[in-house]
């Protein structure tokens, strides 16, 4: 069943088009990898789905226009990890993660499983030891994990991750991708992520969308999108050869 359906999506800032005419469908269990060179509009596409930027075209969630969802409903269904995090005040890790339950605490009957979800999210991201520390004292990677924990606490059905492994140590890169990969196998779930590391994208994605020069240059199965003729055009180099050279360093 199609969970998210994006139809002829376009975003412009003033007169400048960022991307246009992007369509795709996200089905249960999918992990869609959004790839493309810098400035191709990947993050903007993600922000359009979150409602942070105005767009043309339509985005529907479970057959209804996504704009019809109330903010709380949207948050319970679609969770977004932004690319950059900056917190100006000394909130504790737990306080930031707890905010992930915001949409639930507004519900009738409160949020009985909230504390358990928060604890679980802190454990999953390895932040339980730092739960009462101020976020101002954290490194970039730790901060990234805090917001990831917030997202897991939020427990949505669709995860949208903009560079989820930004700043992360290798071990956490691996953990995050394993975690999300496990997470999406439960019924009714799907993931979209913007990923720079093409090897990671290829290893974990079930389908991909390659943005280049404001359009979708290729989309569909991993094999199709990762065809050298598309990749090499988009990135302006022989991608496969470079990857192999890099890998050969380890032999």
């Amino acid at each position, binding site marked *: 069943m199609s969970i998210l359906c994006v139809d002829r999506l376009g975003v412009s800032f003033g007169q400048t088009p960022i991307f246009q005419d992007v369509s795709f469908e996200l089905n249960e269990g999918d992990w869609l990898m959004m790839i493309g060179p810098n400035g191709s509009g990947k993050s903007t596409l993600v922000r359009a789905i*979150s409602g942070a930027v*105005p767009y043309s075209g339509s985005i529907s969630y479970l057959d209804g226009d996504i704009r019809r969802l*109330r*903010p709380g409903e949207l948050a319970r269904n679609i969770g977004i990890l932004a690319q950059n995090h900056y917190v100006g005040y*000394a909130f504790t890790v737990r306080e930031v993660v707890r*905010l*992930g339950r915001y949409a639930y605490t507004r519900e009738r009957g409160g949020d009985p499983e909230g504390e358990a979800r928060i604890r679980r999210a802190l454990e999953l991201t390895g932040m339980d030891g730092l739960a009462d520390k101020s976020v101002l004292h954290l490194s970039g990677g730790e901060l990234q994990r805090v917001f990831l924990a*917030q997202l897991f606490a939020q427990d949505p059905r669709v995860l949208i991750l903009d560079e989820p492994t930004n700043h992360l140590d290798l071990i956490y890169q691996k953990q995050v991708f394993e975690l999300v990969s496990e997470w999406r196998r439960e019924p009714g779930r799907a993931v979209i992520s913007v990923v720079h590391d093409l090897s990671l994208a290829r290893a974990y994605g079930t389908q991909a969308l390659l943005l280049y020069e404001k359009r979708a240059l290729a989309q569909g199965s991993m094999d199709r999108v990762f065809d050298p003729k598309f990749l090499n055009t988009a990135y302006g180099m022989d991608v496969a050869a470079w990857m192999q050279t890099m890998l050969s360093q380890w032999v």
Partner: protein
Amino acid sequence: MEEKRQRESYGLWTWIGLAVLTLAAMLIAVCVGSVSIPVGECLRVFRDALTGTEASDPGTASILLAVRLPRVLCVALSGAALSVCGAAMQGLLKNPLADGSTLGISSGASLGAALAIAFGFQLPQLPFSGSMILAALFAFGSLILILSLSYMLDSSFSTNTIILMGIVYSMFVSSILSLVVTFAPDKLKQITFWTMGSLEGSSYQNALVLFVMLAVCGTVLIRLAEELNAFAIGEENAMNVGVNVKRVRLVILVTVSLLIGTCVSIGGTIGFVGLVTPHIIRLLTGPNHRRLLPASMFGGAAFLTLADLAARTIARPLELPIGVVTSFVGAILFVLIYYKVGRTAR
């Protein structure tokens, strides 16, 4: 886990402690002045007044009940209101330099008051009513103007646009204010006094208006504590976790401007207390608005009460504008506390 949950907001005893400290500051302020009255006598006068007993010393009773008490009440309530507004604005705009004046509301209100003074606008039989009414109207008008201009320029209604419009508007207003002063030089002293703030001659009616506004607006803000936490962490993050960003922001801005407008209309623009108190309190409570907002109310009340006490006693018989004291003491206190606590707690 239960204990972790409770730590979000303070327990009963902390509130009682804060209230006792604030009341103590107010009691001192009531007792000390051109005529100092011992605390015991002071309490006796209050007891007599409450029980309806004839006062044993009518002179003292009249100083306390007719002059000092209404003033101290107004000062404490203004301090509480300005601080809670400052705390809310700093959270909402995720900007530690924000306070009620960031939005241009207090400048707008003082322009209203200045115009009333310059053109002698007032209602018959009610001295000062003209400046109060115009101040409140201008406060609200300024908010509408700033918000609609921001919305026209930027339909996503972003915080940066609102701050920018507020600053531009403040500059614009202060140029008009200078113009008014130029054309009405004989009113300069009165206008200056207004822009520096003073709660001299406050009445019980003023205190009642302030109390009602603080109770209503303060409740609205404290109920939005979790949303303010979300804004303080980041506007886009707030949206992602399900906060109705546009609506909540509008509610907070309107609430703050109503409260600021009321304060300015009664006591003029009292600078710094809305900026500095939330900072000091935040160093003690942390940034969680569940604790920060109520604690700022008490802290602001105590701070402004003591500042007002200083304003009327330091250069006796001359009375200083309260804004001079808040800015002077506040700046020094702020640096000291920030230096001492900030190094460890930040």
